[in-house]
């Protein structure tokens, strides 16, 4: 069992506070969904968590170990995986090579192809030539092969067809059921709330709601109000 605990975390961008005193939790077997309008600070928070941007204050603990001072590579070796916004495949590498980059000793390529069989026939194709959906599958599978305890996923459904989004959501649910702790960032709420457990809503860098996904899914008006005037699908 793993516990990923974020306490009073602040992250700045260009000296300006973008994320302020955020506290949240992700646990083995569960999906914590983080919602919020465009520009709320979700990506900045995740980049602070994985070490792309240094944090300005607060703590990040993974199974009781503080990791917020470590470089991104070290946090990865501690068991944190970050699937960045924008499908960051290695474009010049093939699908198979992409998967091999972070392949841990304890993991096997089969795990990736088992989660997304679609990738098997694309294994020798350069990742830059894959479709958006395939690229998204690839970056999730690639992160999985580092054998993480915690998986951070940023806006995986952006720009994808609904049928593919459903496919991805089901795969993420399966990973949680297999024991991963997942922090799922989404701008469009409905599907994420339907597979998630705990829901957080972020606005202007702060957490403005912390509760059950089920409850929030039942009260779209409340969600609307939390987003404050911006649309939520």
């Amino acid at each position, binding site marked *: 069992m793993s516990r990923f605990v974020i306490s009073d975390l602040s992250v700045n961008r260009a000296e300006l506070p973008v994320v302020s005193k955020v506290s949240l939790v992700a646990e083995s077997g569960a999906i914590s969904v983080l919602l919020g309008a465009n520009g709320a600070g979700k990506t900045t928070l995740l980049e602070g968590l994985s070490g792309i941007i240094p944090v300005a204050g607060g703590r990040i603990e993974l199974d009781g170990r503080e990791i917020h001072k470590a470089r991104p590579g070290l946090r990865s070796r501690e068991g944190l995986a970050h699937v*960045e916004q924008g499908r960051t495949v290695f474009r010049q590498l093939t699908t198979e090579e992409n998967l091999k980059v972070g392949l841990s000793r304890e993991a096997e390529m089969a795990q990736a192809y088992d989660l997304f069989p679609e990738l098997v026939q694309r294994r020798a194709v350069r990742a830059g030539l894959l479709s958006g959906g395939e690229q998204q599958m690839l970056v999730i599978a690639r992160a999985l092969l580092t054998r993480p305890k915690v998986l951070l996923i940023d806006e995986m459904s952006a720009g994808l067809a609904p049928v593919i989004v459903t496919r991805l959501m089901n795969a993420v649910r399966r990973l949680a059921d297999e024991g991963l702790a997942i922090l799922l960032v989404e701008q469009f709420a409905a599907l994420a709330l339907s597979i998630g457990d705990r829901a957080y809503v972020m606005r202007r860098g702060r957490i403005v709601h912390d509760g059950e996904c089920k409850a929030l899914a039942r009260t779209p008006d409340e969600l609307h109000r939390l987003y404050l005037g911006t649309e939520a699908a």
Partner: protein
Amino acid sequence: MDALLTSAVAGLTAGGTYALLGVCAVFTYRLVSVVNFTGAAIGTAGTFALIALTEAGYPTWPSVLAGILVGTFVGVAIGTIMTRWFAESSASTKAAVTVALLVGLIAVGLRLTGGQHPHVMPELFPGSAFRLAGVEVTIASVLTIGLAVLFTVLSDLFLNRTRVGLHLRALSDRPMAAELLGVKVQLLSLLVWGLTGAFTTFALMIIAPQRSPNFMTLSLLVVPALAAALVGLFRSFWLTLAGGILLGVIEGMASTVDSISQYRSAIPFLVVLAVLLWSQREARWDDAR
């Protein structure tokens, strides 16, 4: 005609060196995204370590080894500066930083080596390897070209067949994504700087006896090297290799024609200009489509 052939063949040693330095420049650019103006200066530092040691009476080959180690070390030092403080900078900023470092290295180098003070550079590989159409081909030229080909073939194999090579390609594609997957980005970058430092040093040791071994002239061999890299558009190892050799041969031939021999150091610039114009033409053609 005979004189022209002789001088063309004489240009092969320089050509091999330009090729190797050029291939190292492409290697550095492709893997750590730096157009490195200090390439030749790094090798020069190692070469002068060799000169200092032999002048102090140490035997040649251990001194060669020590010199290569010094070149490797200077390469890693420059690499540390680039990866620690300029990893996130734009390509042009990074290139400008290496130009500044080059000026610094030359200043320090000239000071430590006594400026224009003449040095004796031991000829590591004297003599000729074979005769080509009646012209002697020196061992030095065969060696530099061989080394350049070896470096090209090895980097190809290394990048495409090994796990470290895969990590290097991932790093060159998307450094942050690679780091997030636990790739030891800084260590690998320093490996690139160290490897190119070692190869460059050896190449300069071979060519140094033919030039006035002065810290500045050797460091400025980076100009033909980058011209060669440009022929390969900073991507293709093989085109860079060919470009470097060709540059040396043209330079060699130019030295026999009295009316142009004094301008022969301008040849790399002409090549740079020609490549740039040619690639621009292609871009414009793309735009027009």
